[in-house]
């Protein structure tokens, strides 16, 4: 028996996943979800099924008191019905909010079986569908963690600064709903999350544990949905940046749609508001998703992964990695150059 969360490992299935996407990730990190599918299918020969009829889990609405419990339970029931119909038992979730929602509903049904019956009835009446309880629920970062050694073996890249020969310094940020609701569902539990730090260590980088590592990024739904409340959100992000800045991190890696988005975008906003950036070159600290990093490990074109959509330019990081990429392809659409966005006044690169 393991004594400490520090060593805690979660069980992740080896194959046959039913994949459910995030509502917002394709806007902010447009290549990440496709990258996960390509890594699993093309590089690791895994069976992943996606159903185009899958919808939002309504988690954002649920957390902001717009969607009632009965509705979200039925929506979750419908997604599980699609999985049951396709013959899959392992749910693979792209979004940390959805991941928390699925786990919460499953846990609730376990403790209140009458709620499960209620959901089955509602779904039957509305769509004539039936569903089974999944055998496993994995977050997409769990799966990348699970296959991190295979990815390293297939990779020519090491997370080393080519200019100095030193390992790249990386800070991780774990979405609150990844393990803070159900610690057993995350590698390392809530206190010692290793799902991203494990990737960094395995792939040759140096993991930085900084004081505000476990602090929320500020994405909290109530904080950012109403414009007047966004001051809370950005102030929380600022606490994190101030705490990580002394370590001079080369990049941030996050496993939650909201965290990756806000850690990326708030750096620009903070620079506009306060004139301050949190790296030495005033470029900002690049923020990567775990799929993007895994994609780089496997030699994919950063622009095809949509990394030009980041607020913080990733090119300085690609230079440090000695990564081969074509600068001029950055703003290309269907093989033709497209108009590039106007440059920010504050973040230089």
């Amino acid at each position: 028996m393991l004594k400490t969360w520090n060593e805690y490992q979660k069980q992740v299935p080896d194959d046959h996943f039913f994949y459910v996407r995030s509502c917002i990730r394709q806007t902010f990190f447009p290549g990440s979800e496709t990258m996960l599918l390509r890594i699993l299918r093309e590089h690791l020969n895994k069976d992943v099924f996606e159903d185009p009829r899958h919808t939002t889990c309504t988690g954002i609405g649920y957390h902001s008191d717009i969607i009632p419990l009965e509705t979200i339970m039925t929506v979750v029931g419908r997604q599980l019905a699609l999985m049951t119909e396709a013959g899959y038992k392992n749910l693979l979730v792209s979004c940390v909010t959805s991941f928390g929602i699925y786990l919460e509903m499953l846990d609730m049904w376990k403790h209140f079986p009458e709620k499960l019956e209620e959901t089955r009835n509602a779904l039957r009446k509305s769509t004539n569908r039936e569903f089974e309880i999944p055998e496993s629920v994995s977050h997409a970062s769990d799966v990348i963690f699970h296959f991190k050694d295979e990815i390293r073996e297939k990779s020519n890249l090491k997370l080393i600064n080519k200019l100095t020969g030193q390992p790249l310094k990386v800070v991780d940020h774990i979405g609150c709903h990844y393990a803070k609701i159900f610690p057993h569902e995350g590698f390392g539990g809530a206190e010692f999350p290793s799902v991203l730090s494990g990737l960094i260590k395995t792939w040759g980088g140096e993991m930085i544990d900084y004081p505000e590592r476990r602090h929320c990024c500020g994405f909290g739904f109530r904080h950012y949905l109403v414009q007047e409340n966004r001051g809370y959100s950005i102030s929380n992000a600022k606490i994190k940046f101030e705490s990580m800045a002394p370590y001079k991190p080369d990049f941030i890696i996050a496993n939650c749609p909201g965290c990756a988005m806000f850690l990326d975008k708030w750096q620009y906003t903070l620079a506009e508001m306060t004139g301050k950036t949190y790296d030495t070159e005033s470029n900002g600290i690049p923020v990567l998703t775990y799929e993007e990093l895994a994609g780089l490990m496997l030699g994919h074109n950063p622009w095809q992964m949509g990394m030009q959509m980041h607020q913080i330019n990733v090119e300085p990081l690609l230079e440090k990695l000695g990564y081969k990429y074509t600068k001029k392809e950055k703003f290309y659409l269907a093989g033709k150059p497209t108009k590039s966005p106007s440059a920010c006044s504050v973040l230089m690169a």
Partner: protein
Amino acid sequence: MSRISFGYSVSEGKVINLDQQKPAWLEKIFELEPSLHRCISCGNCAAVCTAGHFTGMKFYRICLNAFRGQTSDLKNDAKACMLCGKCQFACPRGVNIRHAIMLMTQIQKP
């Protein structure tokens, strides 16, 4: 500073940072009135305080702020005192409150 109005602003945290060096004048106050260290925040001083009924002045809070190096309001808070000395009769730990208050009101900066 910002050229763009985002409709919200960054707020500074309320966290007390004990890493910050205490100002020399504060250390001097403790040196001149070491009985300040005896305070245990029991609140007896505030319970009997005449000024506190009207101004919110609480000596034990002034003391706490001084312990934690939170000095921005120290002088103003101390000035609310009427120096009646009732608190000093009440204090179970024998803090020389009036002298401490006198020292605080004489701070040059801030």
